[in-house]
């Protein structure tokens, strides 16, 4: 095990609210019983894994992005900045240049192309990364400040920090944001395998298909976990069978799980079938990754 590179697993989903947090926190806590495990919450717009991890805070670091700041005195009002900004984060209104820092992608184009050097880049705090230790489990939480619109830069910084400070932990689980857009791609970019959590409903199926297509585009092996199994219909299973996507586990629709979860409790140590599911998931992933 020592010579093997770490196994990095992304937990994602097309649809929100399917059980990414349930699976991430329980899988991480369960695996940490036998070996050092890293859990990283990359759902930076609303991280919630912390509700299920109790430990000691090791560090909190402020995270910054660079934004242009208008120097009114130096500005010649040539308008190049507002025409350059693809994201409409810099606009010219008559004799005023307005910078919308939440919209800024820190590309430096306006700053570099300004002939009067009137848009120097400055640090702007966008969020925090917290590291918590709970026995064998290292938990990194990344949190974007309220009002910030760009999740991707913080997700990249979180990956970098996790790699630098805890990159040698053999098992690494990344709880990703929902959906199929840039934050998901940024979150799953470095992982070896992506677990897509879904529910057996038409909504779950629709968004699962989109997530599968996204992961195909970035060449990630995927497996599906069907949560709340027993509700809805069997279309998700039929789809996975036809598309040749392995169903790693089916977590039953069980009132006990909902009750424990809503009280901020882990379920793997209280519900027997859950451990079997988690074992199946990790074994299936290890088999696929080893083959590759």
């Amino acid at each position, binding site marked *: 095990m020592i010579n093997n590179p770490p196994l990095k697993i992304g937990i994602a989903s097309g649809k929100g609210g399917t059980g990414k947090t349930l699976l991430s926190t329980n899988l991480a806590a369960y695996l940490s019983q036998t070996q050092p495990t890293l859990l990283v919450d990359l759902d930076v717009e609303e991280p919630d894994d912390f509700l299920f991890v109790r430990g000691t805070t090791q560090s909190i670091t402020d995270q910054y992005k660079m934004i242009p700041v208008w120097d009114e005195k130096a500005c010649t009002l040539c308008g190049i900045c507002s025409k350059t900004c693809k994201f*409409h984060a810099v606009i010219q209104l008559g004799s005023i240049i307005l910078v919308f820092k939440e919209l800024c992608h820190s590309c430096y184009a306006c700053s570099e192309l300004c002939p009067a050097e009137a848009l120097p880049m400055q640090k702007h705090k966008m969020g925090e990364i917290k590291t918590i230790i709970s026995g064998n489990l290292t938990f990194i939480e990344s949190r974007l400040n309220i009002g910030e619109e760009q999740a991707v830069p913080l997700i990249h910084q979180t990956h970098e920090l996790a790699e630098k400070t805890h990159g040698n932990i053999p098992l690494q689980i990344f709880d990703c944001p929902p959906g199929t857009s840039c934050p998901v791609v940024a979150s799953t970019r470095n992982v070896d395998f992506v677990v897509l959590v879904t529910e057996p409903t038409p909504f779950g199926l629709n968004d699962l298909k989109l997530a599968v297509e996204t992961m195909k585009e970035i060449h990630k092996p995927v497996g599906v976990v069907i949560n709340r199994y027993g509700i809805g219909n069997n279309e998700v299973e039929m789809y996975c069978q036809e598309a040749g996507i392995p169903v790693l586990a089916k977590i039953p629709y069980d009132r006990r799980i909902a009750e424990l979860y809503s009280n901020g409790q882990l379920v793997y140590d209280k519900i027997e079938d859950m451990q079997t599911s988690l074992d199946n998931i990790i074994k299936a992933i290890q088999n696929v990754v080893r083959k590759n």
Partner: protein
Amino acid sequence: MKIAFTAAGTTWDSMIDPRFGRTEFFIVYNDETQETTVFDNSAVKNEAHGAGTATAQKIFEIKPDVLITGNGPGENAATALKQLDMKIFVNAHNMTIKEAYDNYKNGKLQPL
């Protein structure tokens, strides 16, 4: 005086587009010259972010005295529009441009 409407179409019978940043068109009526001008804003569809500020910049170039719209501009657009000396009336959705204009004339529109 120039009155701008966020519009889902290009005529007086078109509905008000309730959105500011992502409005399809602006219809601008000059009540002194009785001229109507249409500005196409549909290119904003391709923007994932920054529609509000992009449209605010466009409105700044048109420089109307009054803006009549539906939901009202979002936070970023509102910040930009503060730089402009312009009265904004909201909640004109579900009206045609003509109905919104008549309601404005009769003082029945809600100022922002």
